[in-house]
């Protein structure tokens, strides 16, 4: 085994070696280095061909038209382009947007910016499992609503929104539906024939492609219009200017092509590993899975170990690369806003670990992780005054704590 063991695939995944090999073919003089926008020579034509082939590969994974794919630098840019671009374009029709409290910061911050510009935003509460129901969306739609933005799969707890059902609601009301699918490509089937989604943000680097490249799906029928956020040479049908990064795009195309071929076998294997991990950890006392376990991608396990603080837990797990919803992992001192929004108390939010499994995870690594987590939780509980109190039958929620 190689240490540390990587169990943070939802943060980013390594490039598949097959992807890296394709990318390396697009860099040097002897290779396909041309500017895809150069119309006057073979270097440009060859690069353009590679870009269009990749566009087709991405479109195939979504079952959409390649002309509906706009290259961006990643899901953050796609979210910005979709939300600000659509809100601005349709602002004469209305200035109300609906999203949820557990969206990625790229969505929430784009909405905050629109609020500063005079738009009104409704932030839906998820249920205690982390899901947004179509009914909740329908109830929030107003005559001046122009856009609904919800994620397909949550990055922290891995739960899956029913995009097909929500899409029916938004289409009925003539509202644009944007979906951040950064966490779902290669993990769930996506079909633009059956999903009435108007805009979908994609990224390569969570699906074994390179960082720094993504795309936005922009539906043609019915046509969705956007105000560009990046002005320049009019690339990507004017929606996103900037010289196309052939090697990145080719990498994303290959990654999505592999995702299409290998999604089923990857998922079956990963689910077995996730269940093995869960079973291994559930033997302990006071262990809670955060978010719905059934409507969840196979790769994700988000779990809280009561009376143990997440950062100290990660410190004990130096041989495991995982992430925590604890405050201390980020610059802010607040625990995860996602876990808070699904109703976890602060203690459990501070005590959470997110372990995400991927294409290269082995059974041996999972068994090692189980053993190490158990050991660390045991050690830290021996150190924890809260564990003592719990064992003595003291109700910690009834104590008046002095906040600091």
């Amino acid at each position, binding site marked *: 085994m190689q240490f540390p063991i990587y169990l943070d695939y939802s943060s980013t995944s390594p490039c598949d070696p097959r992807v890296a090999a394709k990318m390396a073919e697009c860099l040097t003089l002897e290779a396909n280095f041309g500017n895809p926008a150069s119309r006057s020579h073979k270097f440009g034509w060859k690069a353009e061909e590679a870009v269009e082939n990749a566009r087709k590969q991405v479109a195939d994974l979504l079952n959409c038209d390649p002309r509906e794919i706009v290259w961006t630098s990643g899901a953050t840019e796609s979210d910005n382009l979709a939300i600000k671009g659509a809100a601005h374009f349709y602002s004469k029709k209305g200035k109300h947007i609906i999203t949820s409290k557990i969206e990625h910061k790229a969505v929430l911050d784009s909405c905050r910016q629109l609020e500063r510009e005079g738009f009104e935003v409704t932030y839906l509460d998820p249920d205690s499992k982390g899901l947004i129901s179509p009914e909740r969306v329908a109830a929030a739609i107003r005559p001046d609503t122009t856009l609904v933005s919800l994620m397909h799969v949550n990055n922290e707890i891995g739960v899956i929104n029913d995009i097909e059902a929500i899409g029916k609601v938004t289409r009925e009301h003539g509202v644009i539906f944007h979906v951040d699918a950064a966490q779902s490509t290669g993990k769930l089937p996506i079909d633009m024939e059956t999903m009435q989604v108007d805009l979908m943000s994609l990224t390569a680097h969570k699906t074994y492609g390179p960082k720094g490249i993504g795309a936005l799906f922009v539906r043609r029928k019915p046509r969705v219009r956007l105000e560009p956020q990046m002005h320049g040479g009019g690339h990507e049908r004017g929606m996103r200017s900037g010289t196309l990064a052939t090697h990145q795009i080719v990498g994303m195309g290959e990654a999505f092509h592999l995702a299409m071929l290998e999604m089923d076998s990857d998922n079956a294997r990963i689910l077995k590993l996730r269940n093995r991990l869960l079973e291994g950890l559930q033997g302990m006392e006071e262990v809670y899975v955060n978010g719905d376990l059934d409507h969840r991608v196979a790769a994700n396990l988000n779990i809280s170990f009561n*009376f*143990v*603080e*997440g*950062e*100290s837990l990660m*410190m004990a797990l130096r041989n495991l690369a995982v992430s925590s919803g*604890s*405050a*201390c992992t980020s*610059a802010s*001192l607040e*625990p995860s806003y996602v876990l808070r929004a699904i109703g976890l*108390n*602060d*203690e459990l939010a*501070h005590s959470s670990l997110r372990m995400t499994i991927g294409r290269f995870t082995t059974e041996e690594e999972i068994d090692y992780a189980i053993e190490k987590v158990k050991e660390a939780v045991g050690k830290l509980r*021996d*150190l*924890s*005054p*809260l*564990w*003592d109190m719990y064992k003595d039958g003291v109700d*910690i929620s009834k104590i008046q*704590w*002095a*906040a*600091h």
Partner: protein
Amino acid sequence: MAYSDKVIDHYENPRNVGKMDDTDLNVGTGMVGAPACGDVMRLQIKVNADGVIEDAKFKTYGCGSAIASSSLLTEWVKGRSLDEATAIKNSDIAEELGLPPVKIHCSVLAEDAIKAAIADVKAKRGA
């Protein structure tokens, strides 16, 4: 975040972990922090007839820096008088452990804990 070697040492080999009998009149307990904030420290001291701290124990729920701050403090207070222990400042702890600015609150909590434990034992003995 990178931890200093001293924080890692205290975290991996915490000194004086444990619990004392709180009903003992010579034992002072300071419990500070809140689970919601991600830190709870329980620091206990046992004071002899001469007013010297002869033993100290702690348990801490919190990050590595919080655990290290309380572990270090139990080492420091042993053998000191109550007045000497009162004089320990959070900046001394932060400096010794090389805590970064975002972790200064851990050392503040440790100072609060020893002050609370001293106040507790004084109150008990005075009673």
